[in-house]
């Protein structure tokens, strides 16, 4: 093995270790009594008590539900909207197409956080403050999604489109039977990015929500961590694991497909 390779491998392992350290600490404290928060004894007794306590001290069930609704809603809306927009940009000629696409690209360059105040104003004008819809709405017309799907749709050979048309497909039929199946890896990759982003999104939901019925997990967790339990790390970490757990497990389960999808979708 060359010197270069050794250096690379070592660096990769170190990075992975640093990345894992907080997670390892969270797991350690969550599964041990509070007394072992800073004492790392291999034989310390294991317990699930922290999880039970966290679950009972805050409405995590409701937060889970909210997050699920939020994430599935956003992804469904993004898929619909971005697919249709991308199809139009990829395969139709219409006036103002260039300008509109430039606007979409511009959205890619703008940090969403800059728009928080403006978005808040819009949501309050729509009367949507403190609803799950308000958390998702600003993200539905995703420039990233439109751009990504457009690029993928453009790689579909024109002759496939023609063949489907000769066989009697309508435009939506062609989209459904030809473009979407061929763009599956892109949908999977984009879906994953979107789910994890919105599962973990914090600042915006914190601002537009203020009740148990609408709050997603991230906000619920922060409120729980600040007010209720003082600095009981074991319980907070149990709650943290609980909230990020499903995503983590899903990723580990589908890891291989996800990585392949990313490769095929050209995101690296």
């Amino acid at each position: 093995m060359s010197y270069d390779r050794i250096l690379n491998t070592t660096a990769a392992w170190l990075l992975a270790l640093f990345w894992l350290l907080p997670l390892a600490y969270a797991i350690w404290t969550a599964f041990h009594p509070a007394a072992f928060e800073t004492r790392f004894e291999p034989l310390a007794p294991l317990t699930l008590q922290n999880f039970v306590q966290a679950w009972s001290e805050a409405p995590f069930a409701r937060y889970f539900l909210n997050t699920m609704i939020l994430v599935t809603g956003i992804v469904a809306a993004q898929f619909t909207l971005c697919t249709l927009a991308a199809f139009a940009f990829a395969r139709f000629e219409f006036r103002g197409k260039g300008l509109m696409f430039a606007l979409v690209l511009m959205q890619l360059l703008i940090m969403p956080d800059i728009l928080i105040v403006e978005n808040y104003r819009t949501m309050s004008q729509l009367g949507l403050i403190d609803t799950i819809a308000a958390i998702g709405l600003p993200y539905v017309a995703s420039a990233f999604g439109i751009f990504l799907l457009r690029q993928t749709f453009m790689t579909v050979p024109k002759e496939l489109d023609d063949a489907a048309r000769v066989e009697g497909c309508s435009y939506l039929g062609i989209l459904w039977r030809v473009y979407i199946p061929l763009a599956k890896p892109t949908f999977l990759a984009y879906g994953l990015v979107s789910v994890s982003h919105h599962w973990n999104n914090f600042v915006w939901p914190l601002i537009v929500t203020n009740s148990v019925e609408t709050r997603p997990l991230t906000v619920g967790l922060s409120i729980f961590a600040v007010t209720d339990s003082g600095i009981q790390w074991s319980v907070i970490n149990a709650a943290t694991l609980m909230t990020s757990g499903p995503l983590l497990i899903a990723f580990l389960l589908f890891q291989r497909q996800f990585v392949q999808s990313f490769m095929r979708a050209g995101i690296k």
Partner: protein
Amino acid sequence: MTTGKSIMLRGLRKAWGETVSLKGIDLTIPEGKFTTILGPSGCGKSTTLRIIAGLEEVSAGTVEIGGEDVTSRPASGRDIAMVFQSYALFPHLSVAENIIFGLRVRRMGRAERDAKLTAAADMLGLSYLLDRKPSQLSGGQQQRVALGRAIVAEKSIFLMDEPLSNLDAKLRAEMREEIRDLQKRLGVTMVYVTHDQVEAVTMADQIVLMNQGEIEQIGSPRQIYSRPETLFTAKFIGTPPMGTCSARALGIARDDITVGIRPEALVLDQNGPIRARVGHVEYLGADAMVECRVGDETLPCRISGRTELTLGATIRLSVARDDLHAFDSASGQRLDTLPPEFAALSAAQTTAPLGSHASSTER
């Protein structure tokens, strides 16, 4: 069983902004016949076919199919099936699903669909491949799947755009026959685009020769070969193509005429009226191609491979009157009757022409 429908194009024009790719096409394609559209690259063959299919809109003119004006009808309402150059198989669907794609779109019942699939697969020898994906097939097999999709659609007209250009020579010859058979068996009207004249000549009942967005000539392969109406046709059809030279090079005092003679029509003849010098000789086995220099121009001549000619030797050649083609130099149009000056060229013919084997060199 389907029966073909006729196609009629009237005053068809197509322009993309500044580029005009069809400059007024009038064409009748008879029902149940095999018509090839032939021409050099970029002459507008595909555009014509795509307009017939309804995949491209016309700039002017009308398209009639089976006597009905279909100019503004979508592709699916025109009673056509199409085979594309790249086969256009859906990569995410199995062979079976590719073949019945259109039937699914039309929501045909399962039993009927399966029956049609089985029949088409048997006809094309695809039965054992039905579960594969297109990427797991050879080029020839993919081509058959594309044909299968056209067959199960049971349309009156088959449109094919260079369907064999991605196959190797041997397979191409096989598929040529297969497609020809298929057209006869189904009785459909076939419109077949190609830039390969061998394909056009061997398969077609009628050839439509196009050049730069216009039709040069329409006729049977025999007509087009034996009586080219324009210089372009004369030079495009035939391998090697017809040789041409000015009338003056053959000793005829006309400046406005270009003469065309096919290489095989030019024969060595001791008493022939055409004097030429032997240029480069290309030996091909059974025969040889000789560049005959007449004046400062060249006429190709096909002779028997056994004849030996020396470079620079003077030879005499003759040509039958029917094999002389005269064209107006300026317009490229064929002259219906040979001008009287040409009598001298074929006069010597009566004096027993020698077989082309015999050498007739004189030094």
